[in-house]
């Protein structure tokens, strides 16, 4: 694993090379989610029967903005490597393509999340007048973070593997990614949905990418429910890893590069 540490370091330096670009990138996604909270606040002003009050809505969406970078990123560089023959370097060297890409993406997503935790947590506590979470709630949420990232990364690299067969895998990845964000509760707190939808979504991985950890922090889900969600996500991680390995191996048999 030590050989991937320089990849993480280079990834962080790469992200910090253009700092204005990084700041705008962070603002862009955070702003989109905060705007969504304003829509729901307008609804809450007209309907006092919503499952969350106005402060909880603000807390929920600021929490979603913090977690966003861990599950929403673009693996277009992997598709480019497949298309242009960049995979060849992994076939010749004693490094795993999966862990190389994982390390690079982790450096970027980890840095973005760390910056957002530092800048947005005070906003959650001040703007939303949120109750300070207990240590077990914080510890469980921290446990969620690497699992959310690894599951999302494995899922996206699986989708990017389509580039072994089709040139334009990005269109499929983009289309699926937006549905995943919706199902994760990035745009709608899932408690606003009908109970049968909530029940179905609980057994899918997406709810546990954002909605479950945020609700654990807010205290609207118990620690036991939070642990159950984490276990469900881990099971899905095992399943998606198996699919990813299979697709990558099959893709490599299909892969060819000339003149590199």
């Amino acid at each position, binding site marked *: 694993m030590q050989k991937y540490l320089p990849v993480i370091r280079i990834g962080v330096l790469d992200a910090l090379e*253009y700092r*204005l*670009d990084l700041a*705008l*990138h962070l*603002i*862009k*996604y955070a*702003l*989109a989610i905060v*705007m*969504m909270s*304003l*829509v*729901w606040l*307008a*609804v809450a002003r*007209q*309907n006092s029967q*919503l499952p969350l009050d106005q402060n909880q809505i603000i807390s929920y969406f600021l929490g979603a903005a913090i977690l966003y970078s861990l599950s929403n990123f673009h693996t277009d560089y992997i598709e480019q490597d497949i298309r242009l023959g960049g995979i060849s370097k992994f076939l010749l060297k004693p490094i795993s393509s999966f862990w190389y890409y994982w390390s690079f993406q982790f450096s970027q997503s980890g840095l973005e999340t760390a910056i957002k935790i530092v800048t947005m947590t005070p906003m959650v506590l001040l703007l939303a007048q949120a109750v300070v979470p207990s240590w077990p709630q914080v510890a469980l949420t921290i446990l969620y973070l690497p699992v959310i990232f690894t599951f999302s990364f494995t899922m996206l690299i699986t989708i990017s593997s389509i580039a072994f067969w*089709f*040139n*334009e895998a*990005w*269109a*499929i990845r*983009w*289309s699926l990614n*937006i*549905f995943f*964000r*919706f199902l994760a509760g990035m*745009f*709608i707190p899932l408690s*606003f*949905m009908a109970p049968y939808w909530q029940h179905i979504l609980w057994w899918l991985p997406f709810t546990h990418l954002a909605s479950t950890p945020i609700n654990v922090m807010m205290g609207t889900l118990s620690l036991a429910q939070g642990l159950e969600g984490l276990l469900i996500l881990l099971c899905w991680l095992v399943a998606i890893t198996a699919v990813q390995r299979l697709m990558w191996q099959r893709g490599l048999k299909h892969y060819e590069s000339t003149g590199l």
Partner: protein
Amino acid sequence: MKVPGSKALIRYLTIYGQILGFTLKSLLEYRLNFFLQLWYGPAYVAVLFMIMQTVFTKTPTLAGWSKVEVTILFATFHALYTFGIMLFGKTIRHYLSEGISSGEVDWVLLKPLRPQFLLTFSRPELQHVLLVAGAVGLFSHAVGQLSSAPLLSQWLGFSWMLVMGLLIVYFSLSTYMTLGFMVTRARQVIELYDKTSDYSQYPTPIFPASIQIIFFTILPTAFFGYLPTLFLLGKGSYYWPILATLTVVIFAIINQAAWKRALERYTSASS
């Protein structure tokens, strides 16, 4: 009688027609890819539509707007904005993210055409045609559900506001594009613009006053859907078309000044 500038306009429209033709041919070279690309825009908008539908399961009106009225606003915004993005959005995105910093502008400056034309219109994104068609279909369906059909004057005002809205999209986006000449990496500017624009599918009054001011000035997204729809629904004042026209004039002046300054500032080496 000859209208001044008409010859140049016809020339540029002819060239743009040829660009559209080349783009379509190159897209159809890989038909499966083109087919897949057709769907990512509608998939994104389908999710935004589901969010809007969920909003209306919790409230009958939003800032006094019914579900049908917000659906008209939603469809108007997506048809207008996506049409703009289809015509010039991809070109602006390309030059802003890499074209300017990599020195590609050199090739544009050598051609006997206005650089702004080539730097904003040379790469149309025809993959959005399905989304535009879908939004127009949704608009027709929603207008048909209104209790009273809009009057001719409302349609005329709406059409005028749409044209002004499209011009405001162009002038504002291409003005922000000139930032690409000032900083090395400015791609996020258009992404930020794009993400914020998504919220013009909701009635502007649901947002706090400070954000409404931004939607009428720095990011003039209120002109992309809210104001035209207001007019169509008979809720708009006749001052709005005048305000929209004035806004276009102001944005055009700022745009031309920004482009003049940006092109003077442009340098490249060994590109």
